[in-house]
């Protein structure tokens, strides 16, 4: 039985900027942060007589994303013009894909607290980005300026089904999307730079008392959410706001009140109403006569499929089953990227202890990378060597501090594990007779601890063990010391 007052329904429209060197329909660069209007040409400026030519690379990145999102791929697609006037769009039409998106009917899996959930993708299509308006915000009525560097940058728009049912799920979806697009090399998904943008369509369903069915509120589209946190906060706020509005006004219902757009005000933590979409804007779509249709044949599609590699969802499952890792460990590893996963797999192969490998990589190795800067490829400690270190630690029963010292030595002096142990003069006492001598000496030197132990304070044994370990600077195996100590105390 569900006691929630309402259920949240969210669909996300995500725009990712593709990682192409040049724009979608001309040869201009796509570098972020260049001087205003420095990355422009007659084509992206929309000068009279200029013509667009499709960037094949952009289309291929779109295909790659669509395949990874399990979409069916349009074998025949085309470019359409979406007509509207705005100064950041110098042609006053945007080249987009209207009725034949390159991908449709796919899905993305997210890892919720209730397990894996599949979120449907309605469509994904390519389009060109608009420029950026710089308005006079001091209100002195000065001219607005426009920077057309971004105009014509390739965007992939991915529209989900309204199947996200909580603010957390919305965030998880966007996080998973970012991970996927980064893993695929489709986009760098820098939200601060606008290469990942998100609009959320939100409404709620309110179950009625016995036989009353379910009521739904009108959809509100929250535009331009530029962080995961804002997305989650905005959805939560908006859902509650809709509930409260419905309580005040029972006529606030889907079908009675039209769709509206809102913005997110991060300062106040509220959604801010923008405008009601009384009727759908008429963009007068029609096929762009300057561009030819795109035919995706089997050979092309197979080549792109071959470039995909293992998708995150498959990798997530495999890491869990193959290495017996917890969902948490898999999540942490994968969030560190494909390179780290490969490093982990090699380490685990060598040391045959996946859990230990994860711990070393997520702790020591990450700390090292953070200190040194750079990435795994530049780390002098190979996965092979780390694996050997972990194996050696286990074999010799090295404690944490000693292993850390060996790790540091290997790292700084570029040594094999044996050489590092040698250099640190770590002698591991494996001779039980020698340990027996040391334990007896400790018992003799600590009568109080022995007396305590005999009175039943078994923790007192730790004092004795500590004394042995200190004396040997950790070069004896703690488990051996424990066993011998227990034997000697019981006997005495």
């Amino acid at each position: 039985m569900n006691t929630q007052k309402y259920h949240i329904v969210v669909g996300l429209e995500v725009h990712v900027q593709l990682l192409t060197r040049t724009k979608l329909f001309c040869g201009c660069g796509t570098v972020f942060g260049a001087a205003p209007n420095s990355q422009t040409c007659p084509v992206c400026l929309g000068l009279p007589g200029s013509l667009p030519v499709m960037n094949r690379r952009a289309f291929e990145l779109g295909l790659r994303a669509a395949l990874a999102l399990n979409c069916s791929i349009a074998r025949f697609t085309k470019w359409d013009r979406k007509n509207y006037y705005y100064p950041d769009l110098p042609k006053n039409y945007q080249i987009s894909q209207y009725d034949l998106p390159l991908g449709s009917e796919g899905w993305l899996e997210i890892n919720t607290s209730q397990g894996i959930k599949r979120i449907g993708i309605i469509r994904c299509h390519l389009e060109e980005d608009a420029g950026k308006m710089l308005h006079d915000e001091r209100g002195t009525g000065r001219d607005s300026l426009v920077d057309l560097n971004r105009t014509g940058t390739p965007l992939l728009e991915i529209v989900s089904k309204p199947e996200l049912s909580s603010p957390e799920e919305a965030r998880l979806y966007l996080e998973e999307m970012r991970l996927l697009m980064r893993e695929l090399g489709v986009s760098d998904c820098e939200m601060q730079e606008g290469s990942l943008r998100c609009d959320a369509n939100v409404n709620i369903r309110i179950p009625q008392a016995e036989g009353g069915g379910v009521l739904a509120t009108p959809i509100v589209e929250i535009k331009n959410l530029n962080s995961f946190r804002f997305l989650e906060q905005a959805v939560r706020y908006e859902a509650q706001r809709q509930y409260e509005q419905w309580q005040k006004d029972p006529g606030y219902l889907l079908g009675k009140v039209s769709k509206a757009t809102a913005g997110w005000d991060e300062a106040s933590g509220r959604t801010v109403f923008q405008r009601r979409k009384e009727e759908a804007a008429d963009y007068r779509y029609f096929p762009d006569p300057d561009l030819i249709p795109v035919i995706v044949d089997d050979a092309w599609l197979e080549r792109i499929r071959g470039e995909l590699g293992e998708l995150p969802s498959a990798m997530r499952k495999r890491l869990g089953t193959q290495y017996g890792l917890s969902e948490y460990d898999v999540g942490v590893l994968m969030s560190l990227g494909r390179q780290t996963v490969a490093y982990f797999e090699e380490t685990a192969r060598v040391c045959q202890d996946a859990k230990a490998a994860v711990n070393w990589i997520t702790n020591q190795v990450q700390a090292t990378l953070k200190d040194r800067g750079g990435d795994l490829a530049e780390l002098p400690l190979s996965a092979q060597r780390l694996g050997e270190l972990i194996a050696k630690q286990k074999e010799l029963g090295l404690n944490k501090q000693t292993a850390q010292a060996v790790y540091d030595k290997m790292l700084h002096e570029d040594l094999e594990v044996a050489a590092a142990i040698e250099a640190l003069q770590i002698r591991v006492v494996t001779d039980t007779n020698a340990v027996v001598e040391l334990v007896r000496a400790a018992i003799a030197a600590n009568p109080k601890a022995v007396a305590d132990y005999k009175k039943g304070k078994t923790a007192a044994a730790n004092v004795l063990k500590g004394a042995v370990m200190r004396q040997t600077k950790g070069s004896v195996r703690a488990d051996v010391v424990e066993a011998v100590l227990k034997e000697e105390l019981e006997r005495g």
Partner: protein
Amino acid sequence: MSRTQLTASQLLDQLHRGEVTAEAVADDFLRAIGDRNTLLQAFLHVDEDDILQQARQVDTRRRRSEPLGPLAGLPVAIKDVICTKGQPTTAGSKILANFRPPYDAHVVERLRAADAILLGKTNCDEFAMGSSNENSAYGPARNPWDPSRIPGGSSGGSAVAVAACLAPLALGTDTGGSVRQPAALCGIVGLKPSYGRVSRYGVLAYGSSLDQVGPMSHDVRDCALLLEAIAGHDPRDATCVDHPVPRYAQRLDEPFASLTIGLPREFFAEGLSSEVEQAVRAAVEVYRGHGATIREVSLPHSKYALATYYLVATAEASSNLARYDGAHFGHRSTDHRGLIDMYCKSRGQGFGAEVKRRVMLGTYALSSGYRDAYYLKALKVRRLIRDDFDRAFAECDVLLGPTSPTVAFSLGERVSDPLAMYLADIYTISGNLAGLCGISIPCGFSASGLPIGLQLLAAPLEEEKLLRVARLYERATDWHLRRPSLPS
């Protein structure tokens, strides 16, 4: 005979043999322009210093025996919808009165590479929308055979420039007949290449799926020469086909082993003036006399061509012309309040009546609720029109008919009746809708001394055959040798 009355081929021979310098040729044409342009208004912009400098450079290089392009020293007039770097490109519109593009159109690059002399920008209907040149914001060009009459349009200025011997060659653009119809009305040769034969890069778009740049000249050989120079693949135009360009001029006089000419029944129907029909029927007899098989064919969907054209072309135009908004280039009103008002006033002041009419027609045709019934239906009919031609070309080499239903009409005669005006293109527009190549050649004169044009159409990329068929007629006749007599 004055040098300006020579054909381009004759001028090239003289230049090549060193009998005349490019500078002297340019000077002759500049003088002719100086004498007659005030009356004829063929040119909107002529940069004398620039032209003479181009010519001198060719002369210098010829003196040094440097390699020269195939059109070296030959002046070519350019329709003002074609971008020329740093030179005015107004499209016959007030909205671009001060626009100078920072780049050359592909065809202009090709002309420069061929060492042609860019002679100036010619008058045209605003944004190539019109059939009489009366839609130019700068006043209409006038027909040199009778300056009280229209020269046809939209490439009226280019046609007048060649016909009145102000230029030996000119480039026009043809979206629904805009090269062929003024060529017919001015008594010259005008060719519309197959869609995709010539790059549209740098040509101000009107109806993008129909527009083509075409050569205009005194005779078929000149036409072939100029086509050769501008045709071919350009990676900047996705609709430009990558197909080898034949040496059109070389094979012009090759005889046909067999030749079948189709006469579309629909091209000899109501509305065709009897003088034009007689001249065209006489041309058919010339071909028959040369052994051609004449066959009547039918293009049953051609009755829908005009309606289809005015939906497709205007729909595309409504979007193509959206960029002229005063925001980034071109005319911006000075008295606007806010963005929308700026758009409305800039466009309202900058565009003429016919452009506004077509933008509104096209906007309507694409609007939600009407799109299926108008724009999408028009695309389907367009396909049927193309199928008609495919069937006809399965049994005919070329199709023959009149270029225009009448000879040149008087200035002002049809300005208040847009539908009557639109009928001037009734025989030419289906060629654009089907992507064919077509040519208009002189085939006679009316009793009042006005030229009549013969239209030949061939299947896509069959320009070589089209030119040979045209040349066959030209060799047997002398209409193309006549020049209008004008007060100098």
